[in-house]
C-alpha cells in the first residue's frame, strides 16, 4: 500500500476500529479479557515508540526498559503525592522519561552500532541496579512501590476526596475506576493517539530524515545535515513513548517494581518490534500482541491440560508427546519464545508484515498467471530481478 494521505487515513481508521473492537475481534481467540487487552495496548505503545528509534534510525537500543521503569515510578509517585487521576501521572511520567532519555541519549548517541547498544545497556543496568540498592527510598527496592492510604494525595483531597479512605486505591478517570474494560479503553484511546502521532512522525520530513540516517549516515552528513540532533530527538520521543507505556502500567495497576527495568525486558521489546516488522507502522503493535498473546497461552498450560489436548492419541504415544510438548509451555515458554525469535530473524527479518506482503505478492502473481497467457507470465517472471 502506498503511503498516500488517503491510504494513511484508511489505515488509521481501520487500526482504530480494530483496537476499539478489540474485545469482539479477539473473542474467538480467547484473548478478550481486560487484563490481557490492557497488556496488548500498553506493550503496543512501548513497541511503537521503540520502532521510532530502531525502525526509523536503525539505532538498536538495548536499554529501553529503563524508560519503562522510570515512567512507572514517576506515575506511582504522582499517585502518591497528587492523587489518583491518570493525567498528571501520565504527563509527569512522559516529562521525566523525556529528561532521562535526553541525558542518556546525549551520551549514548556519541557512538553508534554495537557501541550504542552497549552504552544503552549499561545505562539500563545502572538504573536497574541502583533502583534495587541506593535508590531504595525512592523505589522501595524489591518490595516495589505502591500507593498507600496514608499517602498525601493533595489534589484528590483538595477536590473533596476522603483523606481517611481505607479501600483499595485505584486510578480513576472522573470517578470511573480504570480497571477491567474501563482500563482497557483508556489504554486503547492512548494507543490510538500514540499510533497517530507515530504515523505523523513517520510521514513527516523529520521521519524522512531519520530514515535517511538509517540508510546512510555519511551521505546524510555530506548533504550538510548534522545528524545527531535528529537521532537524539528520535531517541527522546522513543523514550517518552516507553515512559507513557510505563505510566499506563501503573495506571491499570498502581505499583512499580525494578524488574520492569531488567535488560531482558529491553530484549522483549526488541523482539516485539522485529517479530511484527521493523520500520512498519502496524508491525510493532502486531508483534506486541502476538508475543503477549503467545506468552499468555503458552505459559498457562500444564501437563494435565496437555493430556486433555492430546486425548485422542494412544496412551504410550500421548505420554511422549506430552512430555516433549511440556518443555515448550508453562515455565518453558521462554524456550518457545527463543525459537520463535531465531526463526523470525533467520527466515523473516522483515517480520510478520513482510511475511504478509510476501504472501500477498504470491497471491497476486498466481492470480495474474491465471489470467494471462503462458508467454506473458514468463515475461513478467523474467522481469523480476534474479537476486
Amino acid at each position, binding site marked *: 500500500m502506498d503511503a498516500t494521505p488517503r491510504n494513511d487515513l484508511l489505515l488509521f481508521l481501520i487500526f482504530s476500529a480494530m483496537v476499539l473492537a478489540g474485545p469482539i475481534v479477539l473473542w474467538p481467540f480467547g484473548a478478550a479479557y481486560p487484563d490481557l487487552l490492557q497488556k496488548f495496548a500498553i506493550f503496543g505503545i512501548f513497541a511503537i515508540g521503540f520502532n521510532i528509534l530502531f525502525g526509523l534510525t*536503525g539505532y*538498536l537500543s538495548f536499554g529501553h526498559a529503563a524508560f519503562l521503569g522510570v515512567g512507572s515510578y514517576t506515575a506511582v509517585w504522582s499517585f502518591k503525592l497528587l492523587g489518583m487521576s491518570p493525567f498528571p501521572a501520565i504527563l509527569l511520567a512522559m516529562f521525566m522519561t523525556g529528561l532521562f532519555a535526553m541525558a542518556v541519549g546525549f*551520551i549514548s548517541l*556519541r*557512538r*553508534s*552500532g*554495537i*557501541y550504542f*547498544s*552497549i*552504552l544503552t*545497556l*549499561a*545505562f539500563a*543496568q*545502572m538504573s536497574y*541496579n*541502583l533502583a*534495587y*540498592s*541506593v*535508590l531504595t527510598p525512592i523505589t522501595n527496592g524489591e518490595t516495589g512501590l505502591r500507593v498507600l492510604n496514608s499517602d498525601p494525595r493533595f489534589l484528590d483531597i483538595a477536590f473533596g476526596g476522603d483523606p481517611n479512605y481505607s479501600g483499595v486505591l485505584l486510578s480513576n478517570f472522573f470517578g470511573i475506576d480504570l480497571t477491567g474494560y474501563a482500563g482497557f479503553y483508556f489504554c486503547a484511546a492512548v494507543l490510538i493517539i500514540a499510533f497517530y502521532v507515530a504515523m505523523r512522525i513517520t510521514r513527516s520530513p523529520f521521519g524522512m530524515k531519520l530514515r535517511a540516517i538509517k540508510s546512510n*549516515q555519511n551521505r546524510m552528513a555530506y548533504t550538510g545535515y548534522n545528524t545527531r540532533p535528529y537521532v537524539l530527538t528520535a531517541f527522546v520521543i522513543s523514550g517518552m513513548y516507553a515512559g507513557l507505556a510505563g505510566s499506563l502500567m501503573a495506571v491499570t495497576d498502581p505499583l512499580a517494581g525494578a524488574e520492569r527495568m531488567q*535488560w531482558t525486558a529491553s*530484549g522483549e521489546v*526488541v*523482539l516485539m518490534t*522485529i517479530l511484527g516488522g521493523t520500520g512498519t507502522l502496524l508491525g510493532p503493535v502486531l508483534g506486541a500482541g502476538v508475543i503477549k498473546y503467545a506468552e499468555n497461552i503458552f505459559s498457562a498450560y500444564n501437563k494435565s491440560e496437555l493430556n486433555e489436548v492430546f486425548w485422542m492419541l494412544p496412551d504410550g504415544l500421548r505420554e511422549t508427546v506430552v512430555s516433549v510438548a511440556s*518443555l515448550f509451555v508453562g*515455565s*518453558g515458554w*521462554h*524456550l518457545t*519464545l*527463543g*525459537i520463535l*525469535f*531465531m526463526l523470525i*530473524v*533467520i527466515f523473516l*527479518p522483515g517480520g510478520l508484515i513482510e511475511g504478509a506482503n510476501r504472501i500477498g505478492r504470491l497471491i497476486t502473481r498466481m492470480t495474474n498467471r491465471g489470467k494471462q497467457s503462458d508467454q506473458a507470465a514468463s515475461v513478467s517472471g523474467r522481469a523480476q530481478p534474479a537476486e
Partner: protein
Amino acid sequence: MDTFLLQLLNGLDKGGAYALIALGLTLIFGTLGVVNFAHGALFMIGAFVAVTLNRFFSIEKVVLDPTKTTPWGTPVEIRTPYAEAYLGDWGRFLIDYSVPVSILVAIPVMLLIGVIMERGLIKHFYKRPHAEQILVTFGLAIVLQEIIKAIFGANPIPQQAPAAFSGSADVGAMLSLGEGLVYPWWRLMYLAFAGFVIAAVFAFLQFTTFGMVVRAGMQDRETVGLLGINIERRFTIVFGLAAVVAGVAGVMYTPILPPDYHIGMDFLVLSFVVVVVGGMGSLEGAVLAGFLLGILQSFASMNEVKSILPGIDQIILYLVAVVVLLARPRGLMGRKGVMEN
C-alpha cells in the same frame, strides 16, 4: 593491607572469568566479525558439562544388606557409586576430581558445539547487519539456557572442588606478610588456570603457523584468501577454540559459583562491557580490561568505598564503560578502524 590484598585477589579471580569469556568474544569478533551474544551460553554449557559428569560419576548402585535392618524393619541400603564399585580407588579419585576431569571432557564437547554453531548458524550471518547477528545469537542464547533449565531445573547446583583444594591457603605466610590473609585454594587454582589458558591462546596464535594465518586473516581477510588459504575453515576452528575457552572457564568456575541456567547471561553482559572497554578486536585489550574491571569491581564493593559512594559497587563497571567509550571510543587497546563509528 590485608583487606587490600584480599580484594586484589578477589578482583583478579573475577577478572580471570571476565577475561576468559571476553577473550573468546574478541577472538570471534576479530576473525569472523560477528557479535556473539550466545557466548555466555557457552560458558554456561561448560559449567553444566561439569555438573553432568559429576552426576554421571556419582550414579549409585544400591545393594540391600539383609543382615542389618533400619529402625523400621527394612534392610539397610548400601549405596556406592558405580565408579567406586568398579574402579575402586581410581573411581573415588574420579568422583573427587570430577571438576578437573570435566575439563578434559569439555574440550572436545565445546569444540564440537562451537563448530556446529558456526557452520549451522553463524556462517549464514556474516553478510547480515550487526543488529541481526546480535538478535539471532541472543535468541540462540535464550534457547540454550532454556534447554539447560528444562534438563537441570532452575536452582543453582553446587559443585565440590577436589578435597585436596577445598581448604584455604595461607597466602599471608607465603608472601611473608604476616598472619590473617587466607584465601581458598581453588580460587588460587582458578587464577593460575586463567593465566595458563590465556597464555596458551596467545602462544597458539603467536607461535604456530595456524595462529599466524589466523592473525593475518584478522588483519586482512581478503588478501589471505587470495593467497590460496582456506581462511573460512581456519576461522571455523577459531570459533571452536573460543567456545572451548569459554567452556573450560565455565567448568573451572563451578566450585566458586554454583551454576544455574542464567549464569551465562549474567557473565555475558559484563563480558561485553569488558570487550568494549578493552577495544573490539583487541585480544590484549580484552585480557587487560577483564582483570582491570574485575579488580575495580572488587575494590568498589569494599565497605570503606561504599560508605563514601553508596551503590558504587553496583554500577562501577557500567560507569567505567561509559567513561572509556566517551573518552576513548576505540577502547583501551582497540585497533584503528575496527568498528569505530
